[in-house]
């Protein structure tokens, strides 16, 4: 972590950018998939028809951007620290579904989401260590 680059090369800024890209890409994928949804067609289980939506292509670009900045983050910050911090996206995504996508989230679903978030927060560090060894 010595000689840490500043400005755009700052690994903490890149971690934030990576999380933001994942968050926005999830919302764009959902919006794009809904726009071109064909739930009656068996072929649509493969998701290929989703490529007809420009929003899906924007989401793909953001996924690539998040992947590049994540690789950069891992060069500077250990996985066992970076991975637990990146899990903040698990809180952002359901909030985004509620605020930006207008999804009606029932009390039961909020409780389920909360349990998953607490569980992930508990296991994030040990899982990152396991992934390092795997």
């Amino acid at each position: 972590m010595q000689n840490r680059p500043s400005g755009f090369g700052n690994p903490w800024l890149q971690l934030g950018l990576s999380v933001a890209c994942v968050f926005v890409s999830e919302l764009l994928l959902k919006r794009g998939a809904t726009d071109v949804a064909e739930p009656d067609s068996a072929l649509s289980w493969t998701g290929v028809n989703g490529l007809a939506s420009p929003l899906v292509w924007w989401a793909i670009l953001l996924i690539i951007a998040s992947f590049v900045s994540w690789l950069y983050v891992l060069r500077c910050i250990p996985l066992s620290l970076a991975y637990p911090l990146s899990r903040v996206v698990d809180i952002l995504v359901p909030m985004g579904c509620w605020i930006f996508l207008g999804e009606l989230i029932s009390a039961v679903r909020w409780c389920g989401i909360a349990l998953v978030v607490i569980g992930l927060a508990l296991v994030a560090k040990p899982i990152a260590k396991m992934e390092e060894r795997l």
Partner: protein
Amino acid sequence: MSLLAFFFIVVSLLTFVAAQLILKRAMEFSATNGMRNSHFTLLVAVGVALMTISFFLTLGLLQRFDLSYLYPFQGLSVIFITMLAAVLLKEKLSVRLTIGALLITAGIVLVSMS
């Protein structure tokens, strides 16, 4: 939720976890052996193919379900990694990991009921 949907959710997560581990193995291999060899190319190709499968299956699922419904299922990846680590690395489950995995499972059951 139909059995078919649950099947696709599990397959999309399994392919995602497998792709991550294979790509990581490829990068580790390239650190010692370089990138110009067939083994590295094969690992990257398999990793990218698995990631692509996972992406399209997710896109298919998103056409049918809320994102707030599907997203918590990503917590299952933790269960898969724990099982892989137990099988491949003979890791023992810590109390923290067990409680976390149980909470995630309970949460996913609640979400799937909603």
